[in-house]
């Protein structure tokens, strides 16, 4: 595009020079040839000023809305942790089950950052010389717990329970946490916005199989509305009080 414009400008200039060299042109052509582009006039034209103003305003508004919507959003947040723990090595290469360390992920609201004694199950034997692992030993000796930097921060006004999604819903960890088994350093994969939550609740069918809690509900749903899937939201999963109380 730029090349084209520049090429055209060069051609136009060359043409102009050639044409100015010729004396056989009539008055009208000379007038066109001698035309000067009046920047001043353009600058003073109210139409242009208006257009530029509106465009500028819109750009500003867009940027403003974008930045306001991003307040508190930390998608991609990847802080440096006090110990360079690699999920890639543990979860990816060594295939350790997530719940081995995150013990309460199927039981409780929080998935539980592992305590140092869980690290010691293996690291009392494995890689004991690594400087990173020595940090754990030091923490235990000094009785100073390790202060990890929290990555996923839901606002306090939203109630989220891991076990509802893992144990009951049967959702994979990666659905929300991304390819955690490939992460050398963990980052926040999902937006964790309300829109993101609601969207999933609208689209995901309930994991009702083999759960006697849902038996009658599935029957009622199939009787009245079997054409559409029995999603989380069709069971009230997008109501306010399911997450906000």
């Amino acid at each position, binding site marked *: 595009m730029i090349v084209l414009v520049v090429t055209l400008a060069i051609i136009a200039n060359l043409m102009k020079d050639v044409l100015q060299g010729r004396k056989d042109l009539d008055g009208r052509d000379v007038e066109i040839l001698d035309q000067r582009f009046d920047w001043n006039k353009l600058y003073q034209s109210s139409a242009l000023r208006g257009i530029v103003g509106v465009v500028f305003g819109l750009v500003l508004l867009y940027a403003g809305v974008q930045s306001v919507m991003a307040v508190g959003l930390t998608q991609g947040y990847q802080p440096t942790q006090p110990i360079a723990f690699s999920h890639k090595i543990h979860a990816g290469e060594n295939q350790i089950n997530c719940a081995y360390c995150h013990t*309460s992920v199927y039981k409780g609201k929080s998935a539980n950052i592992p305590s140092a*004694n869980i690290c010691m199950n293996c690291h009392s034997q494995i890689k004991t010389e690594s400087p990173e692992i020595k940090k754990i030993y030091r923490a235990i000796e000094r009785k100073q717990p390790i202060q*990890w*930097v929290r990555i996923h921060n839901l606002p306090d006004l939203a*109630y989220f*329970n891991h076990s509802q999604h893992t144990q009951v819903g049967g959702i994979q960890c990666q659905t929300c946490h991304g390819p955690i088994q490939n992460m050398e350093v963990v980052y926040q994969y999902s937006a964790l916005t309300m829109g993101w939550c609601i969207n999933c609740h609208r689209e995901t069918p309930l994991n009702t199989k083999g759960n006697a809690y849902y038996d009658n509900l599935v029957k009622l749903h199939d009787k009245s509305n079997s054409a559409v899937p029995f999603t989380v939201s069709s069971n009230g999963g997008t109501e306010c009080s399911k997450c906000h109380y």
Partner: protein
Amino acid sequence: MKYWKGIEELDNSPEFARNAFAEFPDFLPVKEGRAGSPDDSSVAPRRDFLKLMGFGVAAATLAACETPVHKAIPYLNKPEEVDPTISNFYASTYFTGSDYNAVLVKNRDGRPIKLEGNPESPVTRGGLSARAQAAVLNLYDGARLQQFMIKGKPADYAELDKAVRAGLAGTTGKTVLVSPTIISPSTKRAIAALAGNSRNFEHIMYDVNSASGLLQANGGVLPGYDFSKANVIVSLGADFLGTWISPVEYSRQYVANRKVSTDKRTMSRHFQFETALSLTGSNADVRVPVKPSEIGKVALALYNGVAGGSAVAGLSASAQKQVAQAVKELQANRGAGLVVSGSNDPAVQTVVAAINQSLGNVGTTLSLTEPSFVRQGEDGRMAQFVSDLKNGAIGTVIFYHANPVFNHPRGKEIEEALRANKAAMSISLNDRLDETGSLCQYQAPDHHWLESWNDYEPKRGSLSLSQPAITPIFKTRQAQETFLRWAGSEETYYNFLKDGWRTVLGTNVGFQTAWDKAVHDGVATGSALTVTAFTTQPMSLAAATSSLSGGSKAGIEAVLYEKVGIGEGGVEANNPFLHELPDPISKATWGNYVAVPRKMAEDNKWKQGDVIKVTSATGASIEVPVLVQPGQADGTVSIAVGYGRTKVGKVGNTVGANAFVLAQSTPTAVLYHNVVTLQATGATNPIAQTQTHHTIMDRREVVQENTLAKYRENPKEVTEYELIATPDGLEKPNKVSLWQDYQYNDHHWGMAIDLNSCIGCGSCVIGCQTENNIAVVGKQQVINRREMHWMRIDRYYSSNHHEDEFEKEGKLSTYAAMEDPADNPQVIFQPMMCQHCNHAPCETVCPVLATTHSSEGLNQMTYNRCVGTRYCANNCPYKVRRFNWFSYYSNEKFEDVNGHMFTDLGRMVLNPDVTVRARGVMEKCSLCVQRIQLGKLEAKKQKRRPKDGEIVTACAQSCPTEAIVFGDMRDPTTRLSQLLRREDGERAFHVLDSINVQPNITYLTKIRNGVVEFFPKEENA
């Protein structure tokens, strides 16, 4: 019948009428003006607005710059049973010298956040008093003493132990340990160990709400009562549902014989002779106001009636009539009646004991072989202690949770003696530098009971344990361990306690298992306490009779009583939940007052809030505001004790005045009544009452009651139902509706509240407050009608008891008397919270859909969507929505009263599952949606439907009388569904049924067993 909430409504004063219909009255300032400044306008000026807006923009910009870094700090070595965010429950025991409750401690992330009743306990059976509900807040009380101290300087354990041991060996004179009643067998053994190591050791127990007279009359034994077996209950001033001896236990028993259904159309009859309108009196079928000096005469008249003696002079006609009726019914129910008295006069108690004896009630409704241990104090010995201390006969005095400087009538003398160092060594084990502790040389603060091991025996045969639910917060030490150290033992109290239990559980191989079970359950059967020898000899009946038959006293008699919330004013006095819990009767919060009958106020031209100087016969005086109290006996006043603390902490200091000084202290008894003179001081001090707040409803459709006679005749006629005229004839309001009904596929949560079982104790109010992080707002905001309680207990007065006087008094004068019904009204309590209407008026007016209906029947409130228009509250017919006028958790104006939301220490008590609400949003009862969600989740995880009773709201759970039943109305097998089916068309009604908002909360009509009927004995098999 006419119902009213307060005197101002009964009078319908112009001021009341003007404000009655405005939920957010515009006469209240939005903004507190600076005191005395002329610029007291309630309108925010433009400059303020611009300033705020500028600040807001700047703050938003700043906030957007950087997200704060949050830390996630796991355990180093995680205990196996503790998982973050999962609550564990540990059995424990709450006992503060006056109120025993077996509890379950809800522990979240290593800290206790709520107490619940322990259903395993045979004594309290899962009930929990309001005081016990609020007790968890005391654990995080910043006013607790945080380390050992010697003469005002911090000291470590060893330093203090050394000094005390040297002192115990060195001082001459008696060594005296002063404590309230101790019901812990192991604590008594620890004290015995200390006694063995000290010179002339004496352990003096005294009770602030003493039952010394009762003990004396029964030979040192506190009878165990069983109100559930009594068909006729006569109480002479004993507030056994509110404060007397073991209210939670008695409430459960009392209501067991008061619940009615189609199959059981009988209930006990309850006579109450009392001075102040108490919680118990307000539940009575027959209540007779009498002066404190007449209580003895009523007892005598009852005795003479029962045992066949002459009439007693000096009683009013109405009292005599009711005494005769009571005698008749007691005699008809020999062995199934019960007479109790709250008086601490040994003469009264001797006569009462004789009445029960001659009626054959001993062994049925009251037991001397299964006595209660919760009162053991002997007033005579305490009086002796005060004299000894003044005489310098005491070398070492140890105060163990005892604060006699504040709560003994002779506190001033003790204070002076301690100031003058009459005892060579004075030690306090109290948890704070209170009125007594601050005068002692040594302070060795005890752990909070939630940090301690201990055992308890409230009643012979019923043991319970407490166990630590948190690591000690401060550098305190368990008192029993302190005793052991001073006795020269290095044993831990845990081992000491466990060893002691070998005698209870048996020393054989099964001990460890039995011990583990006892710790797990929190309760066990067995006995380890013996009755403490009572030194004061019992009175003979003749001596008692002659002491009671003297002439009545001249002058105004004052009676001192305990409040259901503050009680004796121990650590409770620094508990903002209890200060803001409205008194069940007067609905007053924050401070005490002198309750006077209306006639006295009119005669003296006193208005509510006028400050009165109350002077006792001995010259002690206090200044308190006046409250006009319907039901207060003529010529008497009543004042609550437990207020007027000076050294309890930021919350309770200088709230109210100390009424203990007005009590009489005789050498053998402390009497909680006295003759006083009253004098207006000219000052005023408004009383923060919630009574007429949120009182917009018309009563007729709100509370319903009927008589037992009517109920026995036809249960279908006791409740009035509103019907709507339609082309097809009269129909129930819900047959005519503009709205489409919701379809509930999964659950339909609902609640039933039995007005016949509700005694108005307020336990649910506090249970709700701790569960849902409800802010405390303080006195001024209560006056401004901005209290935040999601649940309130409406108390309505009513009266129709003049009708039976037509024949005797003549119609005209009876009608005239009915014009003035405030003198002895009947009382009805109605717990009121969000009714979770299926056609909710609030939902339709919210402009931002912050309040919506859920597929499970809940009316949901979404705080982060609310913009604070308050339309919903204006449109709510039940007035149950609360608006956050301030940031109660960060506005320094509320730092004192709402301290638990300000400091890191205090915030440990907050329920992490419930949002702390911000300024400018509406809030209300959520039907404990966090508990519903958790219960459903647990069921889903186990792949089953929730079981009935598994999910309960905080209020239903805390109710000592099971008046509140919560459950799933869609499941026909639940207790709630069965109850509603059974009571449909009989007692079940909805409040304001005719407006057809279709609440999910159903009430059951109250049934009174008034005097016109009689309880036939044969029907009570």
